[in-house]
């Protein structure tokens, strides 16, 4: 039994399923990267954990169990004691994440007061302490700034500080560096890594960048069209991917190709949730597709060191 267990999770928008049975788990202090292209459902999986899917999406199947409690069926009032306290989130764009009309202090203090009985002064002291922890310069002054008065990198540090306020057991980070420049990305990721390691925090990192996961997470799940198609230890998958899509993704990276020539590419593009092909959703783009792939959806099965949802995983490895 892990700290967090997601089993066969399904999220639907009307008749269409954005998540088609997703399972993964996270142990205490473990870091899991969920990788996929836009529309693969990776953000949906992250938000479904704390049951925060925007309308009209609904969890229509499966379960989310955190520390023995079912989060998917939990009442909103009870969920509130988990969100921001034991499971914290970091969003993609720090400019949009922080409320423009509230100071950073107000947005931090309200979080503390929502979960701990404490006065404003004490909350403020803790908030400054956390800002200092994420290396925000002169935190005692910065705490009274409005978000627009900070640079993008500092804003994301503030968001991380907010997520740390109640010392959560898991941080879910939804593309935390996509909106940032590469030097700032390295700063933010280095900070996150250090925090997770020193505080034994679990991390679920949602990203489209395999290299970012390679540098930060022990385990990796690759998503395609609402399903996890390969899952396992990051190094194992990146050195010997078994699903043709994972292979394609890694192979398409410029660093994996010789200079100046053509990159290995995957043809076509990922189908939308409203026009999924029958069978394996990847088969129209797959060089290995056989008749079975066109008829039956392969399930995630252990193959070697990882789990793969492909009928030909054994041969491909």
């Amino acid at each position, binding site marked *: 039994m892990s700290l967090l267990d997601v089993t066969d999770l399904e999220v639907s928008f009307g008749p269409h399923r954005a998540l088609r049975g997703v399972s993964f788990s996270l142990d205490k202090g473990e870091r899991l990267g969920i990788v996929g292209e836009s529309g693969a459902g990776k953000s949906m999986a992250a938000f479904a954990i704390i049951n925060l899917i925007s309308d009209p999406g609904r969890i229509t199947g499966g379960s989310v169990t955190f520390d023995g409690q079912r989060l998917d069926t939990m009442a909103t009032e009870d969920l509130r004691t*988990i969100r921001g306290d034991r499971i914290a989130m970091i969003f993609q764009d720090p400019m949009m994440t*922080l409320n423009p*009309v509230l100071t950073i202090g107000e947005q931090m203090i309200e979080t503390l007061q*929502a979960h701990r009985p404490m006065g404003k002064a004490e909350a403020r002291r803790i908030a400054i302490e956390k800002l200092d922890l994420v290396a925000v310069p002169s935190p005692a002054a910065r705490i009274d*700034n*409005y978000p627009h008065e900070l640079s993008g990198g500092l804003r994301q540090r503030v968001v991380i500080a907010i997520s740390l306020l109640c010392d959560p057991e898991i941080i879910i980070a939804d593309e935390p560096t996509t909106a940032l420049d590469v030097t700032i990305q390295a700063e933010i990721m280095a900070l996150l890594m250090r925090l997770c390691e020193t505080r034994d925090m679990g991390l679920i990192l949602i990203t489209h960048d395999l290299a970012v996961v390679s540098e930060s997470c022990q385990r990796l799940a690759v998503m395609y069209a609402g399903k996890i198609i390969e899952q396992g230890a990051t190094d194992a998958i990146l050195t010997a991917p078994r699903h043709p899509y994972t292979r394609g993704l890694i192979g398409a990276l410029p660093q994996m190709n010789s200079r100046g020539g053509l990159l290995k590419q995957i043809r076509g593009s990922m189908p939308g949730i409203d026009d999924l092909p029958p069978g394996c959703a990847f088969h129209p783009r797959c060089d290995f597709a056989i008749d079975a792939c066109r008829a039956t959806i392969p399930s995630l099965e252990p193959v070697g060191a990882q789990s793969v949802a492909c009928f030909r995983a054994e041969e491909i490895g």
Partner: protein
Amino acid sequence: MHLLAFLLRRLVQAVIVMLVISVIGFSIQSNLGDPLRELVGQSVSEAERQLLRNQLGLNDPFWTQYFRFLGNAVQGDLGTSYFFKKPALEVILDKFPATFELVLVASVMIVTLAVPAGIYAALKPESWGARILMTTSIVGISVPVFLTAILLISVFSVGLGWLPSFGRGDTVEMPWGWDTGLLTLDGWSHLILPAISLASIMLPLFIRLIRAEMMESLRTEYVRFAWAKGIASRRVWLTHAFRNTLLPVITVGGVQIGTLIAYTILTETVFQWPGMGFLFLEAINRVDTPLIIAYIIIVGLIFVIVNTIVDLIYTLVNPMMKLPGAAA
């Protein structure tokens, strides 16, 4: 932005607007009606008229006459009402309390009803209450002010006989010659129908505006982040979502105050409410030029003051336009 720069710019702008209005006012004066006729009647010979015109400066160049007009206006002299035979400014200002109280009560009604109704309709868009609110509000927007007024009169005054249909009722004299109807029961019974009809068109407008802005703000990332932080619903709705709807609502509200004052002319006409609007319409029918001009200038001044206040509030509420002092 720098507060001083902001105020100075507003001041310059206000002066320009007032100058434009004064030019309009003066053009009306020099083209409408014949001041001589008002002064001496028809029986005076042409030679005497010319003499009088010269004495009054009516043959001077346009700009000379304008600056004389402007000089007088700045000193509060907007001419003498032909009908009341009193200074026009005095006549207008006598009626100011009635209009002010009508607008005040209507505005209070609008704010106290529109904010909770708008928030409710945004939070529970699928509920029956919200559907009824939205349906009534579109009907409300589609009924012109004067029809609401007529309807209220025919139901509550003519039909049921509960409330008076015209006038202001008993008033109480306050310091500085301010007559208030807010201190007597009779005053309130006269005020209630005009105030409802004045509020009737703005109320649905604001409910819909607040609802739309609130729904937009509920969809933002920062509201989602607030949920993810585990903040209580009340605080997410009011502090995170509603506070961000204030800026557009203040902006639109500022513009709508102008419309509200324009609608007083309609409301006051139907209810024969003794305010500035009713007086203005009478002045138009009597071609009482000094009174028309006085009204235009006073109303222009009110607009300028209200807009400056609205802009100032906007600047203070919006942290993006913060004044110097905090670290940048």
